[in-house]
């Protein structure tokens, strides 16, 4: 090989994430606003590096006083300087890191330098493999002695073969003994960072500078350098077989090496690492998603849900849940339960509405509140929104103090403006949200949100509690009304489309009145078994999520006949990825049982019927005001009062156990209030409970079920007061 100018391979930085954690901590607790140097250790090894780039690692232990590491690492000493603002300067070390940490954004700007003299030009006379000069035994001896060297002596050392034996000397002690005559017996050994042949690591230049400083007589002479390179043999042992011997001609630099280097002060030292674009400039490491606790919480929560998607439900649309805006009307036991479950599903937009404050009895049942909240009588919606953010800072929760105006709760002149404000606020809230939960404790407070939810075609989920029973249901929507109403699936399966389903009030024969009036104390507060609200809250949330996942959304059909053997995997082409979606769920804790009735929309409903919807459309607040002043107004316009009269004439009116809805052909005319159609209407609204999952069709259940409905109406104080 002819003589040529020696090329060098630069070293690259590799930062262990723990380095940033430590730097963050130091900046925050030690440096603060000071710009301080910190001594650091770098770790280098070519063992276990399968990339062809020499990588120098820094990690959290880099800041330790002493270099302690596994045998495989070679120490590098350096400094890190933490700037208060990003800028540039130069200092000489083996490694030098300039960094600027933006603690708020977890952005770390950094620039590594591995400084080497710029002016040093080396000529390479020859390169050969180590085995040209060393026999097998000598190589083994060399390796054994090298391994015994102190770790700080390993990067640079002197080597000599004398009487066939290999001697290794620490550079520090032996360099003083070199002279013009004996230096030819020595090899200048160094742990080569480079993995490329014929091209040593760039830091060799510092070694040569050091040698020229201590042994100026070597200027212009040819010197043997031993580039130590490790190789793992097939027997797993490390060997020196890949090591090279460079014969290098050292430059003449009169009068001294330091003069040569500092000739041009602007170009004395080079070695700044290029950035990822191959340009001279700092790199940026954005550690926000790995260090910011809020980000960590968000990504962990997301990952948990993604695992569900990846492993079980590949078609689930988690992004949809994230984007959906949930409105919780009522922030009590139900509101707290629903909020927690939808939070678990990855909901990010949750709004709470309530008009009361946290009382001492609340926190034990209402899972978002604490004793502290009750001590200061914090508004429930505010406490719920705040505490939800404490649980998960990634949620955008908001709160609204609002009393929902109710039918039959008459309004004085002085209150008129305030009620109008409340109505406007509720109208806005319902328009702005996608899913509306009715989680209040009275029947009549559900009326206005039901009317509005229907009017704006929102998904409305309603939950109501008895002492040991619950009702969770979704309201039907009024879209695409010309569609086929009942679908016949494979034998045993029938479903009623979501745009034909009834609302909470479709089962009623009276308008909601003032149920707070004339009640004893135990009727006014919610007296329920504590588990009921958790069950109903969870079911409400799950029902909402299922609807969101259905391709038809609120129009999703409610299955009401599903045969004796339930095989939901098969056939039910209209279910969603989470399964089929009922219209309503009625549960009884006294028997730990549940049924899934589906009810059709009632054409005389006080909330979702055409006549009410049209009246609202035309007169808006004036219509509402009439209802607030006197709830019987609703019964008059829907024709319910007429119906009641007739019913009284008939005497007892009965539900039929066998009743099922007729198919397709069945229709009733809009606003037909004649006597004959009201009887039809009566029939049509018979409950379509057919089966639940665990029981066969069973009269007792139906009877219990009917009893429950009556009981509920009793509790609400509506029917009884009528009779």
């Amino acid at each position, binding site marked *: 090989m002819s003589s040529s100018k020696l090329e060098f391979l630069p070293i*690259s*930085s*590799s*930062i*262990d*994430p723990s*380095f*940033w954690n430590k730097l963050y901590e130091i900046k925050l607790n030690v440096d603060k606003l000071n710009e301080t140097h910190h001594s650091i250790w770098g770790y280098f*090894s070519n*063992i*276990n*590096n*399968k*990339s*062809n*780039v020499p*990588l120098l*690692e820094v990690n959290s232990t880099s800041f330790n006083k002493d270099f302690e590491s*596994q*045998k*495989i690492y070679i120490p590098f000493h350096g400094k890190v300087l933490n700037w208060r603002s990003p800028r540039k300067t130069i200092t000489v070390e083996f490694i030098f890191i300039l960094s600027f940490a933006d603690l708020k954004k977890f952005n*770390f700007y950094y620039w590594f330098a591995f400084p080497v003299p710029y002016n040093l030009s080396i000529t390479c006379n020859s390169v050969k493999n180590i085995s040209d000069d060393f026999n097998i035994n000598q190589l083994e001896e060399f390796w054994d002695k090298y391994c015994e060297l102190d770790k700080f002596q390993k990067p640079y050392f002197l080597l000599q073969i004398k009487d066939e034996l290999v001697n290794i000397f620490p550079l520090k002690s032996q360099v003083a003994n070199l002279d013009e005559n004996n230096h030819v017996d020595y090899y200048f050994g160094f742990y080569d960072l480079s993995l490329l042949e014929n091209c040593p690591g760039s830091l060799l230049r510092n070694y040569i500078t050091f040698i020229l400083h201590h042994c100026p007589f070597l200027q212009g002479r040819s010197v043997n350098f031993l580039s130590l390179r490790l190789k*793992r043999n*097939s*027997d*797993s*042992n*490390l060997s020196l077989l890949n090591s090279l011997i460079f014969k290098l001609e050292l430059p003449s630099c009169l009068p001294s090496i330091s003069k040569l280097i500092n000739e041009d002060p602007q170009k004395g030292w080079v070695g700044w690492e290029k950035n*990822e674009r191959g340009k001279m400039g700092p*790199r*940026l*490491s*954005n*550690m926000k998603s*790995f260090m910011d606790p809020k980000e960590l919480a968000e990504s*962990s929560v997301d*990952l948990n849900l993604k*695992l569900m998607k*990846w*492993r079980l439900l590949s078609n689930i649309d988690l992004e949809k849940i994230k984007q959906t805006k949930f409105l919780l009307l009522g922030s009590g036991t139900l509101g707290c339960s629903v909020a927690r479950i939808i939070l678990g599903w990855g909901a990010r937009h949750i709004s709470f509405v309530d008009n009361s404050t946290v009382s001492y009895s609340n926190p034990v049942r209402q899972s978002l509140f604490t004793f502290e909240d009750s001590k200061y009588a914090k508004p429930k919606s505010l406490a719920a929104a705040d505490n939800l953010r404490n649980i998960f800072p990634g949620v955008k929760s908001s709160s609204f103090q609002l009393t929902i105006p109710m039918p039959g709760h008459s309004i004085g002149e002085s209150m008129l403006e305030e009620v109008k404000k409340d109505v406007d606020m509720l109208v806005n809230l319902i328009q702005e949200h996608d899913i509306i939960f009715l989680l209040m404790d009275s029947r009549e407070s559900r009326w206005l949100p039901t009317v509005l939810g229907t009017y704006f075609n929102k998904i409305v989920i309603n939950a109501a509690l008895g002492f040991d029973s619950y009702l969770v249901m979704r309201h039907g929507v009024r879209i695409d009304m010309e569609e086929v109403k009942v679908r016949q699936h494979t034998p045993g399966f029938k479903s009623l489309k979501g745009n034909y389903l009834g609302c909470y009030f479709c089962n009623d024969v009276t308008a909601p009145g003032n149920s707070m009036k004339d009640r004893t104390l135990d009727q006014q507060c919610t007296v329920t078994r504590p588990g009921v609200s958790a069950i109903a809250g969870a079911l409400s949330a799950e029902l909402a999520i299922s609807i969101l996942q259905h391709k038809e959304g609120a129009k999703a059909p409610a299955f009401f006949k599903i045969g004796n053997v339930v095989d939901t995997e098969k056939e039910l082409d209209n279910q969603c990825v989470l399964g089929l979606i009922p219209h309503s769920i009625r549960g009884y804790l006294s028997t730990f049982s549940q049924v899934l009735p589906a009810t059709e929309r009632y054409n005389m409903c006080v909330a979702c019927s055409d006549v009410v919807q049209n009246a609202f459309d035309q007169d808006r607040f004036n219509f509402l005001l009439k209802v607030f002043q006197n709830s019987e107004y609703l019964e008059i316009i829907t024709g319910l009062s007429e119906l009641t009269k007739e019913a009284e004439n008939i005497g007892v009116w009965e539900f039929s156990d066998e009743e099922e809805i007729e198919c397709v052909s069945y229709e009733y005319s809009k606003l037909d209030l004649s006597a004959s159609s009201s009887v039809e209407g009566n029939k049509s609204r018979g409950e379509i409970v057919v089966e639940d999952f665990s029981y066969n069709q069973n009269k007792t259940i139906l009877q219990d079920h009917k009893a429950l409905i009556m009981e509920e109406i009793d509790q609400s104080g509506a029917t009884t007061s009528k009779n």
Partner: protein
Amino acid sequence: MSSEQSFTIDLFHCCVKKILEISDKYQDGWSLQLKDGIASAYITKKSRCTLEDPDKKLPLVIVTFDYHVVYHPSYCVPVLAFNVWKQDGTFLALEEFWKYNHHFRNSNMFDTLTQLDHPVLQRPFLTLHPCRTKEIIEPFLEHSKNPVISWLSTVGHFVYLDLLQEYLKSC
């Protein structure tokens, strides 16, 4: 798994001790971690390589793997947990890692490689799923002198962890 065959923590420590012995002898880089004392001892190793996207859509990336072999007290098996980061210290996310790793391109990749909390550190790590580990390690309990090594040699290469031949000699 019958009770006499179950994988105890003592067996784990025994196997791991042997790995460390061999690693020290050959400078393989495994080291012992004793964060919460001897009962929760586990071993770690770092290695570096260049990852290439088989579809060539993503750039080549030089990464550091930080492997942890830890005993999982709930699953009663050792787990192979690891983190992968780029040169600037930012981690490769699970989905990103999948893109680079052609071994996980089949339908059951979600069951095989997942993200779990490290049994000792309680921080999220990419982890070969412990359920699968149980299936794989079970036959080794009878037939291998060091089930941990046998299992690692079976699954390691899926996540770029190579074992020296010397380890296998002790099985």
